[in-house]
C-alpha cells in the first residue's frame, strides 16, 4: 500500500519535474522560465525526500527556491523587457540538428546503461537506518569525513561573492558615468 502511494507520488513528481524542466527551456519569457525552474526544484525536493534526503530536500527548497531563484527574478525584473527572445531561431542550420542528436545520444547512452543494469545492482539498494540523511548525520559527515569539501564550498561562495561585487559594482559605475 505504502509502496503504491510512493509510486504515485514518484510518477507525478517525476513527470511534473520533467515537464517543468521542458517549460524552463521552452518559455520565451525568462520570467516564466524562472518560475518553472522553481517548480522544478521543488519537485526535485520531493524526489529527494523519497530518497531519504530530508536535509538535502530542505536545503534544496531553501537555498535554491529561496536565495538563488529570488536573485534570478530580481535580475530579470531589473533588466525588464530587454529579456524577451523568440525561443528557437538563429544560429547555423546544423545547430539544432546537432543539438538534438547530441543530447539524444547522451540520453540514449545513459538509458542503455540503465537497461544493461536492469534488475541488477540498481535494483538492490542498501538498507538505510532511520538517521540516514538527517541534518545530524550530514552535519557529522561535513565535520568529519568531508571537512575539506565543506570548507572549500564556503571559499567558493566567498570568491563568487567577490566576483559578483567586482562585476556588478563596475556596471553601476559605468551607468553613473553614462548618466
Amino acid at each position, binding site marked *: 500500500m505504502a509502496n503504491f502511494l510512493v509510486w504515485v507520488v514518484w510518477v507525478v513528481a517525476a513527470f511534473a519535474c520533467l515537464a517543468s524542466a521542458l517549460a524552463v527551456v521552452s518559455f520565451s519569457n525568462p520570467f516564466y522560465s524562472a518560475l518553472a*525552474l522553481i517548480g522544478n526544484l521543488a519537485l526535485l525536493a520531493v524526489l529527494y525526500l523519497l530518497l531519504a534526503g530530508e536535509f538535502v530536500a530542505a536545503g534544496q527548497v531553501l537555498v535554491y527556491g529561496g536565495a538563488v531563484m529570488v536573485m534570478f527574478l530580481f535580475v530579470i525584473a531589473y533588466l525588464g523587457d530587454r529579456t524577451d527572445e523568440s525561443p528557437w531561431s*538563429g544560429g547555423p542550420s546544423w545547430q539544432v540538428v546537432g543539438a538534438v542528436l547530441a543530447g539524444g545520444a547522451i540520453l540514449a547512452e545513459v538509458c542503455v546503461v540503465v537497461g544493461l543494469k536492469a534488475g541488477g545492482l540498481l535494483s538492490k539498494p542498501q538498507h538505510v537506518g532511520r538517521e540516514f540523511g538527517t541534518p545530524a548525520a550530514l552535519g557529522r559527515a561535513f565535520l568529519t569525513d568531508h571537512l575539506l569539501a565543506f570548507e572549500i564550498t564556503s571559499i567558493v561562495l566567498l570568491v563568487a561573492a567577490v566576483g559578483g561585487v567586482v562585476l556588478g559594482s563596475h556596471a553601476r559605475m559605468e551607468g553613473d558615468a553614462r548618466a
Partner: protein
Amino acid sequence: MHGPDIQWYVVLSALLFATGALGVMLRRNPLIILLSVEIMLNAGNLLLIAMSRLHADEGGQVFAISVMAIAASEVVVGLGLIVAMGRRNVELDVDKLRTLRG
C-alpha cells in the same frame, strides 16, 4: 525500499540533463541558458542523491549540498555578467556576442 528502483531516478536525471543541455544549445537568452545550466546541475544532484541512497552512503548527499552552493556561485557570477551586459545596453542574445570568432 518503497517506490521505484534507483534506475528510474537515473533515467529521470538523464532526461533532465539532456533537457538542460538542449536548453543551453538551443536558446539564445543568456538568462535561460543559465537556468538550463541549473537544470543540468540538478540532474547531477538527483543522480548523486539516488546513488547515495543506493549505497546508503552520505557522501553523495554531502556532494549534492556542495553542488548547490557551487551552482549558486556560478549563478552569481553569471548574473553579474548579464547585469553588466544590461547596463551596457548589450542585447541579451548570445548570438550577438560574436566579436570573438574565427
